[in-house]
């Protein structure tokens, strides 16, 4: 009993030590922060032009709406060349659909449906970075429609007439939201609990895996390199 209490204390202490102190903002440690009087105030139009991010609670969403079936048309013309007709991903381009139930397997398929915790990430990313090579070219309604279609393809909504808008956006919950955890590192023993062995640490050593067998290294000419 005593042992487990001690262990608990150690665990608690290490949690306190390793957790980034994000909840305690210490700005006053070095006295009042000096101001330099540099820069200028941003105009409302400038902030509006750049402030395109969207958060899980829906903050940042623009006015607008889009229907899944309209999203399909945009997807076919602007997305399918890389992501595939069914979101399966062409060559090494990202897979967008499927993968449900694979996260514990040897071949996890991390898609919007199987992995992404928040729908806001889809809107935010498509709006800022897609289509690849033509970023920020989609209208807000087009991004709503594409996001709705991606929900439909991932069977998170089952109606191709589903309309996604600023109003119903944050009601949508993604299936994998609960499966994200905090960073528990360090998760291997520290010096204080286990000193590394220096002498006669093992009796026999065998090679268990070799890179040569797999042979995927870009061509190396050791004479030249």
């Amino acid at each position: 009993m005593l042992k487990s209490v001690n262990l608990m204390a150690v665990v608690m202490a290490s949690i306190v030590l390793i957790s980034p102190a994000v909840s305690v903002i210490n700005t006053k440690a070095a006295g009042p922060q000096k101001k330099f009087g540099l820069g200028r105030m941003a105009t409302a139009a400038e902030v509006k032009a750049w402030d395109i991010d969207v958060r899980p609670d829906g903050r940042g969403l623009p006015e607008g709406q889009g229907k899944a079936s309209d999203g399909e048309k945009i997807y076919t013309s602007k997305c399918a060349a890389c992501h595939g007709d069914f979101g399966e991903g062409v060559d090494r381009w990202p897979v967008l659909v499927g993968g449900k139930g694979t996260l514990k397997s040897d071949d996890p398929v991390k898609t919007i449906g199987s992995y992404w915790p928040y729908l806001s990430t889809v809107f935010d990313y498509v709006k800022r970075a897609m289509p690849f090579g033509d970023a920020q070219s989609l209208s807000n309604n087009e991004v709503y429609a594409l996001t709705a279609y991606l929900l439909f393809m991932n069977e998170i909504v089952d109606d191709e007439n589903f309309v996604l808008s600023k109003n119903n956006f944050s009601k949508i919950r993604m299936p994998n939201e609960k499966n994200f955890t905090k960073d528990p590192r360090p998760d291997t023993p520290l010096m204080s609990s286990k000193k590394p062995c220096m002498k006669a640490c093992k009796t026999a050593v065998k090679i268990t895996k070799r890179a040569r067998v797999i042979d995927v290294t870009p061509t190396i000419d050791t004479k030249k390199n």
Partner: protein
Amino acid sequence: MENKKPASATTTSRRGFLRGGLVAGSAMLAGSAVAKTKSEKAITEVPEWSQLLGDGVDASPYGKPSKFEKSVVRKNVEWLTATTESSVNFTPLHKLEGIITPNGLCFERHHSGVAEVDPAQYRLMINGLVDKPMVFTMEDLKRFPRENHVFFLECAANSGMEWRGAQLNGCQFTHGMVHNVMYTGVRLKDILAEAGVKTNAKWLMVEGADASGMNRSVPLQKGLDDCLIAFAMNGEALRPEQGYPARLVVPGWEGNMWVKWLRRIEVGDMPWHAREETSKYTDLMENGKARRFTWEMDCKSVITNPSPQAPIVHGKGFTVISGVAWSGRGTVSRVDVTIDGGKNWHTARIDGPSLNKSLHRFYYEFEWDGRPLLMQSRAIDSTGYVQPTKDALRKVRGINSIYHNNGIQTWHVKAGGEVENVEIS
């Protein structure tokens, strides 16, 4: 203090050294010490460079490495990604010395190619939970007090291809998503103070100006602690591929957060859960759960010479093992090296500056008897963190986590000096 000792007994007393010199000197006078090997033309004939004039000044206004060093370049692993615009290449660690990575050899990771930002058009915006949203030009940024720091930048996916076993033959490919340069920049907390951060602020969203608009959430406390907005690396302006004209520096934390071509910082009360901190840069465990916000880079080391791209070519005899070690939590206090697959370990010699969250250079010198070797290095940082084996990591995390593989690397040196990436029992 152990690391200050020489790794091999090569110390010679001054008196002994002088005596040795006298003996050699008198032998030369007697004319008895004459090599029996054939004379080399490299000495007996006058080479072109000793006879003719070379290039004058300005032949290369921005200097380049010797033409004999052409193979010392970054390299890409083509099968890894669909296109070079959203891809990565690797620092040739096996060809580098000391702790500083030359600017042209710092590995690249882009999400939509290199943004060619005109510094005259560059603007940095601070908005969100601030008293007044602000805009800064490059000139404004350079008027804040400057600091110089050497920091490593490591991609969280460095060594990610090795989770399932030894795969790539060369430390350039297994460990080359790291570089270490001296940054010149200004404190992020000074910039934030100009806008006035509101008391309920807890997070920052940092965003790039490239065509991916790369964005990440950073805890405000980290931003106030030690983040910089850098505009120079190794004494010159940032290279375009490293975020010219300004990038974020997030010491000790994964490279993806060091947003390049930094254009906007939004202050908020909750994290954003952007694509690069949900879909990517989360670590999937065996039980199907994924760790998120795994920012810190654990202590890690690798032997860079010998390694598969840098075999031993001199045969048996005195041999120098060289490598690099680093930790996102502080300095590296010790590096141990084994040449017998972990049966016995020797404390290596750390040489050169030991800086916070920077690469450290280590050496271990020994007499090689020409028999096969199994070489490893194991780094220990100032927090007492011990670099684990790859199997120890797999035991805790499984093999699907992609990121944060800081396990001990094994090189198999064969009798001929050839080196292979292997794993051992």
